[in-house]
């Protein structure tokens, strides 16, 4: 890749990543949330990986890191669902909003997202979905780029 592209890609990818995070943060109000924001973050990471290559990319996405983030996202989603089941009897019940008035106020306060809209657990679900999607999409590209290495190992 050209030097100009290499100079500009990393700063621009940081802005793209921030915009992806901003999209996740607006997921409970606007169309598009965790998935779209996660895809935008993955786009920023993929932009760097394509231009610099896996070895020289400023983002060092190790297998352990990707596995940890994806697991944290999945477990966070399950935890929020089970919390609803435990405290209200309904899986994925929105504890922060508590539309049926069946949850103690302490639990309601804990699970409520601190913003003026009282969205409850929806922003947290967007957050964990964003983590899963950003890992999933960037892992696909990393796997494709590493396919030579993997295939080479198989043939040997």
């Amino acid at each position: 890749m050209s030097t100009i592209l290499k100079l500009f890609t990393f700063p621009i990818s940081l802005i793209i990543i921030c915009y992806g995070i901003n999209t996740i943060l607006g997921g409970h109000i606007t169309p598009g949330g965790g998935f779209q924001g996660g895809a935008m973050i993955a786009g920023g990471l993929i932009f760097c990986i394509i231009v610099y290559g896996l070895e020289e990319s400023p983002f060092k996405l190790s297998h352990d890191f990707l596995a940890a983030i994806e697991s944290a996202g999945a477990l966070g989603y399950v935890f929020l669902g089970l919390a609803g089941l435990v405290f209200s009897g309904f899986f994925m019940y929105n504890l922060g909003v508590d539309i049926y008035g069946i949850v103690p106020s302490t639990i309601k306060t804990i699970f409520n997202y601190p913003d003026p809209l009282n969205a409850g657990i929806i922003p947290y679900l967007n957050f964990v979905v964003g983590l899963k999607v950003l890992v999933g999409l960037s892992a696909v590209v990393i796997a494709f780029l590493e396919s030579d290495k993997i295939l080479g190992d198989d043939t040997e």
Partner: protein
Amino acid sequence: MIFYLGPLVIGFLLGFILGTRIKPSPESKLKFDAEVYLIVLIAAIVVAYYVGPFPYYLDSPLASGFVSSIIGILIGKLLFGREGSAKSQIE
């Protein structure tokens, strides 16, 4: 001007997680010094100003989540993205 805690904390957290992965490449000829990050911070604040108070909180003139995410990236990079931590990970 009111700053709501939710977008600030979650934006910072996501940015911090990604910022910890920015590490220098010893074999690369390109190096991104502190000036690059300073310019990115200024550019991000300008972008956040033009994005407006997303997601529609009308709390501040700029997107507070956007700014907190770039601050999270920079702090994550400063804390975990140094040359020493990159070498220890390779080893």
